[in-house]
């Protein structure tokens, strides 16, 4: 053996010593489900599109939204953003202003004329969509992208459903609605307005349709019986808001308007009345503010604009120029009970905003279709009704009634309809485990408070229908995107690669993340502890 002086063994590198054998737990990379994605009714991959936006790649960010939701500019304005309510950053300083970034991307797409291309080959199958609301439009979009030929039949004179006839202009400008609808039609979707469908099988048969998605919404106003000598003074919220869109003259509500109800629609009508010149717009609601189904920020904005709310009151009767109101009090279970104390309120008009029912007549004669006791249509987990080939979604099926839920239904139904048309079944991929705040190492994130969107000044909010909430510009949209903690998903901060005392991680390069060298990893867990976003976990070794 020839070795240098005074050395009896060959020299060698420590790489010969596979310290991985010391380990009884191993780290593994994983993607966890960020709470925003988990909360999104439209199933957007919010963390992913924020990731692209962080890099300033707005087009790619927008394309990522469009995989799940064809209406980002609308959604960035009208969605009640459950994503933000569940955002982990709220536990650090304040939630990411996700809807404002989405709106920025949606507006950018409209400004720049970004398009989605159909990449699937045409299938030759035809799909009928009944109703051009958010659900029907979303279904039409996804079906068109899947290569099917889509026709929408809409009973009304304009497309958009509740996005046009329910949400007032000052929250959702109509040019935005039109631009996003047009982009769907540009995919080759055929829109037939003023076309009411009464007999689905007949229309399908006549047009040669292979499947149908029904999403006609819920637009029959619920009524209560209020004794009155002049029924003309009692209107319903749906007709008022609809009249704002379709009638040549806005509805005449008078100088003093009372709105009965506590939902977002009630607030919308009161704010509309204020803008139409009412001196007094009063909301009467039988329970308390905490129990009001309307969203807090909408109530706040209404109050700022001079709307008055009378909580714990019901309307019991009407005479020539006033309404009788009974005070309520909450019982131990939190339900309002009458007190026998009455007051009167002078008003020209009463608008009922007590919720809406579904006009189920379109489906009643279809064999196998079930209408449940609350008057909505029952569908299976694949969104199919009891009648084979006819699917339904949106406000007409049992679910929360928001446009985001409707868009989610449209997507889900389209996936099942696509599978149905191809003679297959669609199985949703399994969901990742949730990335809770306790899995993050928040020390690493810079301090950065939420960016505030500009608001229209109050005088213009009381007199015009201009949009109340302004948008972000590129600088602050980028800032806001970069506040994202990227919960549960690697954003390549190099922490694991840097903090490994055993150099047991390989950096694979931009976009390719990292890999463990299990030959050398001793299983100390430092990478897991120091990963800011919770994208690594320890699992037991099989010994």
């Amino acid at each position, binding site marked *: 053996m020839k070795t240098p002086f005074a050395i009896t063994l060959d020299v*060698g590198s420590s790489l010969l010593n596979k*310290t991985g054998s010391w380990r009884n737990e191993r780290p593994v990379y994983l993607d966890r489900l960020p709470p925003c994605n988990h909360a999104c009714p439209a199933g957007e991959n919010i963390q992913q599109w924020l990731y692209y936006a962080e890099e300033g790649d707005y087009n790619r960010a927008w394309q990522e939204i469009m995989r799940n939701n064809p209406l980002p500019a609308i959604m960035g304005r009208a969605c009640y953003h459950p994503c933000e309510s569940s955002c982990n950053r709220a536990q650090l300083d304040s939630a990411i202003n996700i809807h404002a970034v989405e709106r920025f991307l949606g507006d950018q797409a409209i400004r720049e004329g970004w398009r989605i291309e159909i990449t699937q080959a045409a299938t030759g199958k035809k799909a009928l969509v009944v109703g051009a609301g958010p659900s029907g439009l979303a279904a039409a979009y996804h079906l068109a992208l899947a290569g099917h030929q889509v026709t929408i039949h809409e009973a009304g004179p304009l497309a958009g459903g509740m996005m046009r006839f329910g949400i007032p202009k000052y929250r959702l400008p109509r040019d935005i609605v039109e631009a996003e609808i047009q982009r769907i039609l540009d995919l080759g979707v055929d829109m037939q307005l003023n076309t009411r469908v009464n007999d689905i099988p007949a229309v399908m048969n006549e047009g040669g349709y292979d499947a149908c998605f029904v999403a006609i919404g819920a637009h029959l106003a619920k009524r209560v019986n209020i004794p009155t000598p002049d029924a003309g003074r009692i209107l319903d919220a749906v007709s008022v808001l609809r009249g704002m869109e379709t009638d040549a003259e806005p509805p005449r509500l008078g100088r003093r308007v009372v709105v009965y109800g506590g939902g977002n629609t009630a607030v919308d009508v009161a704010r509309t009345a204020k803008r139409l010149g009412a001196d007094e717009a009063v909301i009467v609601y039988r329970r308390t503010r905490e129990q009001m189904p309307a969203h807090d920020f909408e109530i706040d904005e209404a109050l700022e604009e001079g709307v008055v709310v009378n909580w714990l009151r019901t309307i019991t009767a009407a005479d020539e120029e006033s309404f009788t109101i009974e005070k309520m009090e909450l019982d131990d279970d939190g339900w309002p009970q009458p007190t026998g104390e009455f007051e009167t309120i002078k008003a020209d008009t009463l608008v009922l905003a007590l919720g809406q029912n579904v006009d189920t007549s379109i489906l009643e004669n279809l064999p196998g279709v079930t209408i449940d006791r609350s008057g909505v249509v029952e569908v299976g987990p694949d969104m199919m009704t009891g009648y084979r080939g006819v699917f339904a979604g949106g406000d007409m099926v049992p679910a929360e009634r928001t446009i985001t839920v409707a868009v989610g239904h449209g997507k889900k139904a389209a996936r099942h309809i696509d599978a149905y048309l191809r003679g297959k079944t669609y199985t949703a991929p399994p969901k990742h485990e949730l990335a809770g705040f306790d899995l993050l190492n928040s*020390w*690493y994130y*810079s301090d950065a408070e939420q960016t505030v969107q500009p608001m229209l000044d109050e005088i213009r909010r009381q007199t015009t229908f201009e949009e109340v909430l302004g948008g972000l510009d590129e600088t602050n949209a980028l800032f806001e995107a970069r506040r994202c903690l990227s919960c549960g998903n690697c954003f390549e901060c190099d922490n694991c690669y840097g903090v490994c005392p055993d150099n047991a991680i390989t950096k694979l390069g931009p976009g390719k993340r990292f890999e463990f060298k299990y030959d050398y990893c001793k299983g100390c867990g430092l990478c897991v502890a120091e990963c800011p976003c919770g994208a690594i976990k320890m699992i037991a070794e099989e010994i």
Partner: protein
Amino acid sequence: MAHQQIKFYQTGTFTVGNRLLDQQLRTVQATADRSNSLDSGHRACQGCGEALGARFAIDAAMRATDNQLIATNATGCLEVFTTPSPESAWRIPWIHSLFGNAASVATGVAAAMRVKGRSEVRVIAQGGDGGTTDIGFGCLSGMFERNDDVLYICYDNQAYMNTGVQRSSATPGAARTATTQPIGDQPGADFGQGKNVPLIAMAHDIPYVATASVHDLHDLEAKIIKAMALHGSRYVQIFVPCPLGWGAHPQDTIKIARMAVECGLYPLFEAEHGEITNATKIRSRVDVTEYLKIQRRFAHVFKNPDQLAKIQAIADANIQRFELLSTVGNGQ
């Protein structure tokens, strides 16, 4: 500030890298081609702070010297776990002689390089706190006094870990070691003894003295790179938690270091020619209990309010003395 603090790019400069930052603003450790001077397969315990600190420091020095670097090493964990002869985890020219003479050997290597006209080759001496503050202290002080062109790096884990966790002159008050057991009225190590070698080094009026911690990589690398840009004797002391000796979970190594700095017990500062020029501000101040409670060596302190108060007082005094709090608010 020793390095440019990026205020906001999702994680600013707190993480090792940051895909939103320019390459030159990321750390050496974030690069795929870092030298990995201390390679895989070494025999340090799980979660070893010293192995981490040594790779951080030597990789940064390698970058700063264009890989023209020789290191001498005192006896201690760092020597034993990297180089059970004839096998070594070092990927740089490296020499070990005795426990106490790393500074003198480095002086000799630097002299040899000078004689050979290899002015581009730079020399680092390194060791643990035992080899630095106790056994090698005479050689170290001599090296400072002669202002030899060597950077001495002390990896401070506050006891003799290699031989079984005996007290060194860097062991803090109240800490349990094999030779300072938690018994009697004043359990653990005595207060008021031990040496603060960074301050002693400053008294030698050498060009550069700094303290660093494994939890703040940007700060650590900036100090090593700055030290390598200077000539003469330089001293950097790096705080490296020892999971085994301190009774801590291996995955908490960086957290312990972070808490030590954030509570004020381990001030990070720089000094040039005996004058403090910069102190790294505390980002989010915590009580010393946050630091102590994750280490078994301080478990008895929680039954001993006197000791706890003394430790908090040391932290508070450091915060005053080194001006560790930001003048604006308590944040960054």
